[in-house]
């Protein structure tokens, strides 16, 4: 039986659901956040190392491309949601300058602490704020940010549509959302190699480097359960975003979605 076949296909209709996916498992919605928190508590210390090992450094290019597409200008206010260890926030901090601001938000305190320490060690302090926040209920006023980015975070959110609605609320008119997330490979051979790598190599790497194979098994499963490119674009539009588009990176292993609030 393939890994995909283990997914529970007998879900109740939308609106009656009390469960959600946690990798391939179905869990109670109220418990997903704490289970995801457990995963990231476990990997926080080795998160950056594992990202480099797993992606062979390519994640840095995906993130750089995202920052370039953001086209952030001096004095703008940026929210880096699920900002983890602050890779995007560091770049935004230098680009918006002292008249702008960057808010690094993450639901997970361990990740936030690692990110804060890393950025402070780089001497980045003057325009950075750190907020422990749930993407589904952002603790910011309406129309606050010029740009919201979320890199490799949306798939871990329990109710993704709620998160997109919440982001739409805090964006200023004219502001934009960029979501960088694993997606569905567009080429069949790439897809097969990627599946084999995800389910056979990735957990072993997790075991070897971070002494935690389960978290990386969850990572592989959560990627497969994440909406594909077109579905996520529709979710953007449902939240109210306009001029939505996406770009596949590395044959669709990762996609960068972009939407504007007008």
């Amino acid at each position: 039986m393939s890994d995909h076949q283990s997914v529970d296909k007998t879900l109740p209709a939308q609106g009656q659901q009390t469960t959600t996916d946690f990798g391939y498992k179905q869990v109670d919605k109220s418990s997903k956040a704490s289970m995801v928190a457990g995963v990231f508590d476990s990997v926080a210390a080795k998160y950056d190392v594992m990202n480099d090992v797993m992606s062979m450094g390519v994640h840095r290019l995906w993130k750089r491309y995202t920052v370039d597409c953001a086209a952030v200008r001096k004095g703008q206010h940026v929210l880096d949601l699920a900002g983890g260890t602050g890779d995007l926030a560091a770049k935004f901090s230098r680009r918006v300058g002292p008249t702008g601001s960057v808010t690094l938000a993450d639901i997970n305190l361990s990740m936030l602490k690692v990110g804060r320490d890393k950025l402070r060690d780089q001497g980045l302090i003057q325009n950075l704020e750190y907020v422990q926040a749930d993407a589904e209920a952002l603790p910011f006023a309406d129309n606050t940010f010029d740009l919201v980015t979320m890199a490799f975070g949306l798939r871990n959110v329990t109710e993704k549509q709620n998160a997109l609605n919440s982001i739409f609320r805090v964006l200023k008119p004219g502001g934009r959302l960029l979501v960088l997330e694993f997606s569905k490979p567009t080429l069949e051979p790439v897809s097969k190699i990627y599946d084999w790598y995800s389910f056979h190599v990735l957990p072993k790497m997790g075991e070897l480097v971070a002494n935690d194979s389960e978290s990386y098994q969850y990572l592989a499963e959560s990627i497969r359960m994440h909406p594909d490119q077109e579905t996520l674009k529709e979710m953007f539009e449902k939240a109210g975003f306009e001029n939505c588009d996406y770009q596949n990176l590395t044959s669709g292993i990762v996609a960068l979605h972009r939407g504007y609030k007008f």
Partner: protein
Amino acid sequence: MPAMALLSGAIETLINQVLSFDPDSQQRLEKLNHACLSVFIEGVPNGITLHFADKVEVSIENDAFEALEQNLAAQHCCIKTQLAVLPELKETSQLTRLIQQKKLYLEGDINVAQQASALFKELDIDWEEQLAKYTGDVFAHQAFSTAHRLFDSLTEFATKGQRIAANAVVEEKELAAHKLAVLHFCDEVSDLRNDVERFEVRLAQLESHIS
């Protein structure tokens, strides 16, 4: 894969690595604090922007020069030029001439362009010391002394070779004229041109006199 992201990453790493070799560069970087310099090269589809902070961030510009110059913030300079002109930008005194010759289009804060130029022009890197960090002082000193001697020998060899070749071509094989002969010939041609011009003027005067 976004190849431009790879390129901008490589440029950023290179710039910051080179700047880190010169301890005084940090002081010059501080003068540029949070300024931006966008550079567009004619024929290249995307420009790049250098963001000067505690280090230099490089980003790819998705907007064209014309679109970017409309929305320039303070301390942002935007230039468009040709690849061949880039080395000339090191001389800040040449900027006005290049703008007048339409080889350089500059919008925004010219101080940013001048300070950025100074940041790279005034780089003073002790490469021997950099190598010594990895190999030790003795090896680095030997390597650089050998390299200097080799360079001097090659320069001398090249100069001598050039002299011998010139002598063979001009004196022995007589394939080319001597430099002095060429100058003399040029002078004679110049004299002849002047004579002809004078003759033309005189002829014109005579024609007008007759008619």
